[in-house]
C-alpha cells in the first residue's frame, strides 16, 4: 500500500451533504475486475452529461480544480454501498485526502486500505476550509499526518484525531494481511477453541 505522510495541494469544495458511493462511482463502472482505471468515471453522472460531455459547472471540471488532490465535502461523505471502487476512483483521479464533518463507516475504513486519508473536523473548521477551497488553485491546503494537522492557505492550523493503529499503517504503508498473518498462531488457537465450544459453526 502507498504511504501517506504529508500532502500540499489544491482542494475542491463539495458542500453537498450525504454524497453517497453511487454518486462517487455509479454502478455501471463496478463491472471491472481491476482496481485501476476508475478515475475517469469518478462522479460520472455529476461530471458528464448524457452524451459524455463535461458539465462545466461541476467542480472537478473547472480549470482550478482539475488537478485537485483534496476534497472538502459535506457531512456523511461516502454513505451507502460498501463498494471500495469509491476510494479506488478518488485515488485514481488523484485525490488522496477528503475532509468532512463525518464519514460513513465502511467508506472511512476503505480509504485507509488505499493510502488515502479521510479527515474529520468540526463544522466551523470545515466551513473555513470550504471557503478556502473555494478560492481556487492558488489556495493550497497542507495536510501533515504525523503532526495530525490541516493548514489552510492563510495559515490557520487545525488538529485532527486519528486512530493510532490506522495512522501507523498509513505512515508506513503497511499491508494489513501480512500484519495479521504474523499473528497466525493466535488465529489457530482461537479456531481450535471455538471449534470445541461451538462445533456447529
Amino acid at each position: 500500500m502507498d504511504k501517506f505522510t504529508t500532502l500540499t495541494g489544491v482542494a475542491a469544495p463539495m458542500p453537498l451533504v450525504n454524497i453517497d458511493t453511487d454518486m462517487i462511482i455509479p454502478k455501471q463502472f463496478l463491472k471491472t475486475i481491476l482496481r485501476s482505471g476508475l478515475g475517469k468515471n469518478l462522479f460520472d453522472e455529476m461530471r458528464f452529461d448524457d452524451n459524455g460531455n463535461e458539465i462545466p459547472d461541476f467542480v472537478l471540471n473547472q480549470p482550478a480544480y482539475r488537478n485537485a488532490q483534496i476534497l472538502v465535502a459535506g457531512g456523511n461523505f461516502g454513505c451507502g454501498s460498501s463498494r471500495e471502487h469509491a476510494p479506488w476512483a478518488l485515488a485514481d483521479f488523484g485525490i488522496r485526502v477528503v475532509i468532512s464533518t463525518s464519514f460513513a463507516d465502511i467508506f472511512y475504513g476503505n480509504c485507509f486500505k488505499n493510502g488515502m486519508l479521510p479527515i474529520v473536523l468540526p463544522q466551523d473548521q470545515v466551513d473555513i476550509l470550504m471557503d478556502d477551497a473555494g478560492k481556487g488553485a492558488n489556495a493550497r491546503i497542507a495536510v501533515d499526518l504525523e503532526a495530525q494537522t490541516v493548514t489552510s492557505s492563510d495559515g490557520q492550523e487545525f488538529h485532527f484525531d486519528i486512530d493510532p493503529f490506522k495512522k501507523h499503517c498509513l505512515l508506513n504503508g503497511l499491508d494489513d494481511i501480512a500484519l495479521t498473518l504474523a499473528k497466525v498462531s493466535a488465529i489457530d488457537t482461537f479456531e481450535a477453541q471455538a471449534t470445541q465450544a461451538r462445533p456447529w459453526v
Partner: protein
Amino acid sequence: MPKTLYDKIWDAHVVHDDADGTCLLYIDRHLVHEVTSPQAFEGLRMAGRRVRAPEKTIAVPDHNVPTTPDREQGIKNEESRIQVDALDRNARDFGVNYYPVNDIRQGIVHIVGPEQGWTLPGMTVVCGDSHTATHGAFGALAHGIGTSEVEHVLATQTLIQQKSKNMKVEITGSLLPGVTAKDITLSVIGVTGTAGGTGYVIEYCGQAIEELSMEGRMTVCNMAIEGGARAGLIAPDEKTFQYVKGRPHAPKGAQWDAALAWWKTLKSDPDAHWDKVITLKGEEIAPVVTWGTSPEDVLPITSEVPDPDSFSGGKVDGVRRALDYMGLKPGQKLTDIEIDTVFIGSCTNGRIEDLRAAAAILKGQKIKPGLRAMVVPGSGLVRAQAEEEGLAQIFLDAGFEWRLAGCSMCLAMNPDQLSPGERCAATSNRNFEGRQGRGGRTHLMSPAMAAAAAITGRLTDIREMMAQPA
C-alpha cells in the same frame, strides 16, 4: 459487568486484543458475490495465498445476473459475463461453497445465507456488501466490508476491527393494520437521519419487533446501514430457532441442542449500558414513502412534499437538489405523485412474506394500463415457493412480469433499469440519484404499498385500499 447482545457476540470472537483497542475478530461466515470479490481473489493469487476457511465461505452471483428467462443461454453483457465467470472460476479454484447462476438455490446473497441455514445466531457474518446487516435479524453480528477486507477475511478468516458503541432502538406496542417492517425501518431512519447510526451497532427490540416474522426482522436489520449503523441486531427467540431448524446447514441432533442452549443466552442483560436509546411507539408508525434522494427523506403517505427552507444547514441545498432531481414541488400531496414503474424485490423485500403481502393486494386486480411492473423473487427457492402458493399467477394475472432471482432493479447493474425521468415505486433500500438507472426517480415503500401503487398508478395509502370491500 452486564453486557449487550453485541458485547456478547463481540467477546466470543476476539482473537487478539491490542492495547489501543484494535482487535482481531474471528469471522464465522463470509458471503461473497461477483462485484466486490474479483480484486480480492486476484490479490490472493498474486501473493500465493489460499482461502483459510473455504468451508465457511459462500459465493453466489446476484448483482449482475439478468432476471429474464433467457439467462440460461448465458449473460449477453460482456462485462457482466466476465465478472460472473470470474466468480465461477474463483469459487472452484479456491474451493468455496458455491451456488451458480442456474442453481435453484441461487439468489440474492442475503436471502440465500439465511435460507440455506448458513446464518445462525451468535455468528459473525461479513460480505462485501453493505446490506449484510440483514443477517442481524438472527442475532448475528453482520456487516458489510470493502474489497480489501474481503481479501483479508479470505486470507485470515479475521478482520481488524474496533468496537462500535451500543444503540438501542425500541419499538413499543403493536403496529396498526397496513404498517409493516419496512415502515418501521424507514421511520427509524427518518428520526435518526442517515448518519445517526454512524459508529454504532443497533439492537432493535420491543413488542413490535418481537411480533415481526423472521422475514420482517430481516427487512428491519437490512436497512440499519441506511441509518449509518455498522450493524443491526435482533435477539434470537423461538421464531428464530423455528426458522433455522432443519435448514440444510443448520446444526442437527446433539449439536442442535448444544447450539440452542447457547443461542438462548444471546440477549442483552437488563442493566446493560446503552450509549444511545431511541424509542418509537408502534401504533404511531404510519405507512411511509420516501420523497427525496436519501432514505432519511421519508414521510407518512398522508403528507406533502416538504419545503427545502424548512430544513437547516447543508440539508437545505440538498433538499432543493433532491426535489429538482425528483421533479417534485413543495406542498404537493404524496398521494398525487404518479408513477411509471413498480419494482418488487431486493434483499430488503424479496422474501416469500413480501410476495404474499403484495399478492394479497393484487389478487383479482389489474395494474394501471401503461405501467411497467415486475416482481423479482429474492432466490430461486422463494420463486418456486411463490409459484407453488399461486402467488406467481396472481402477479401475472395483474400484469406484472415474473422474473428470475437477483438484485435486479435495486441497483440496476443488470439490464433492469429506469430511464431518465422514469418514476418507480420500489421495495428496495436506496433512493439515491441514479441508483436505479441514470435520471431514474425512486420512491421507497413496503411491498403492499408498491402493489397498491401499481393498481392506482400513483403513490397510494394502503389503508384506503384495505378499507374497500373485496
